[in-house]
């Protein structure tokens, strides 16, 4: 395994500010609304989150090629917000996480048929927002260290290309992509 580029370190907090008057009221109302929302969530899931929380990875979109034409390669770009694979990572703000993707060389279809799939050196992207168009590209074959945003969020997007042969057997072809996430300072 190797790592990605050097991470920037986060700026130190400069201390708390005192909030007064109307601004404080607005903040209090917002806090109450958030508390109510959290209570509603907590009633169902009993959230385990804390200010420093473990990395949580949520699959938010499978790579979706739909139907493809035999003999014609079909590509999905990582910037395709409808069809690109997407993972949502939530964790501690501003911490470095190691991202590693396990990619299949082919997909399994009917009667043992295989469908090749390729991932290029710019087919993965990382962003602090759910904006694949703003994501920084990286090679999905190479593990990479990225920093979660100040809200503790990060998004990984993945594109790829399937290469059906002229005589590709009809049917459903399936495969699995595995994203591994780890904090690197534990």
């Amino acid at each position: 395994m190797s790592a990605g580029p050097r991470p920037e370190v986060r700026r130190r907090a400069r201390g708390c500010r005192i909030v007064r008057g109307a601004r404080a009221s607005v903040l209090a109302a917002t806090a109450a609304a958030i508390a109510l929302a959290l209570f509603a969530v907590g009633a169902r899931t009993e959230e385990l989150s804390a200010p420093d929380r473990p990395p949580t990875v949520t699959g938010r979109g499978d790579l979706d090629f739909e139907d493809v034409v035999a003999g014609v390669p079909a590509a999905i770009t990582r910037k395709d917000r409808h069809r690109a694979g997407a993972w949502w990572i939530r964790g501690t703000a501003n911490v470095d996480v190691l991202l590693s993707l396990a990619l299949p060389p082919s997909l399994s279809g009917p009667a043992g048929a295989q469908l090749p799939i390729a991932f290029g050196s710019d087919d993965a992207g990382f962003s602090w927002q759910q904006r694949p168009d703003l994501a920084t590209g990286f090679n999905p074959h190479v593990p990479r260290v990225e920093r979660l945003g100040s809200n503790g969020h990060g998004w990984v997007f993945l594109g790829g290309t399937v290469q059906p042969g002229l005589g590709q057997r009809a049917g459903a072809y399936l495969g699995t992509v595995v994203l591994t996430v780890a904090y690197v300072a534990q």
Partner: protein
Amino acid sequence: MLEMESRDRRRDELGTMRSSRPRGARLRRAGLHAGLLAWILAGTPPAQAIVLAPHALFIDHHTRSGILYVQNPGDDVEEVSIALEYGYPASDSAGGVYIELIPDPPANAPSAAGWVRALPQRIRVLPGARQAVRLLAQPPAELPDGEYWSRIIVTSHAAQAPVPVSEDAAVRVGLTLEMRTITSLIYRKGQVSTGVALDDFAVESAGDTLVAAVRVSRRGSGAYLGKVEFVLTDAQGKEVGGWEQAIAVYFDLYRRYSLPTKGLAPGPYSLAVRLSTERSDIAQAQLLPAEAVERTIQLVVPERAREEP
């Protein structure tokens, strides 16, 4: 709330996008539409997620067990497997960091992976539910005092992945996503100490960034879990920048940190580095104390090339 909104939006966009696609070149037939519609509706990717707590597990030789909680905040049943493997954060020659996983560690490695078991190793977690997994240690009888390490590897995927529906002439492709989360396990027996030695500290200026290179090695018998801080001061002794980052030193570590310094005037500066075990993401009771290590280096920020208007 955010999750639900995003998913609904994705579903809407998916429908719009599909209806606007060209159809002539596809292996799609009129009879396929019903099947596709069913798949689109049934196969819209659900939110899959697993939350683990704690994110760093410490086990004491007296209790010899710990609890890892696995929570499913998603909408579908999750199949979760838990495995242990010896590993630790390590660095490469470029100053990057990664997790070194060693399935078959040498006999002298401080590995706990061989004698800590997860019970159970496979679970199904219902939506909104939380399950406890016990990490049970059965160390060798003559285990010397010290610290022993493992990584906990938790793999999860939806119990029932959407399967694309295909009719005779269609080639349908579906790729599902699986998640793996790696957390740490530290087993302590007897007196354990830690510390860190700053073997090398260098800095170079690279445009609007200072690159600080830090080479450290661990002291004592326990992993050094702390943070590294940098403070930049100008020639008058005024602090003009400060940065910090968590760090874990299990053996040796070489890190290169980028310190953004946009707007910094050219001239002489001092950059101080400080390594300490003060960090908030791990319970204080679990942190091994160590004396802080500090060093200061002088540098000159050069005149930058004037930018083109």
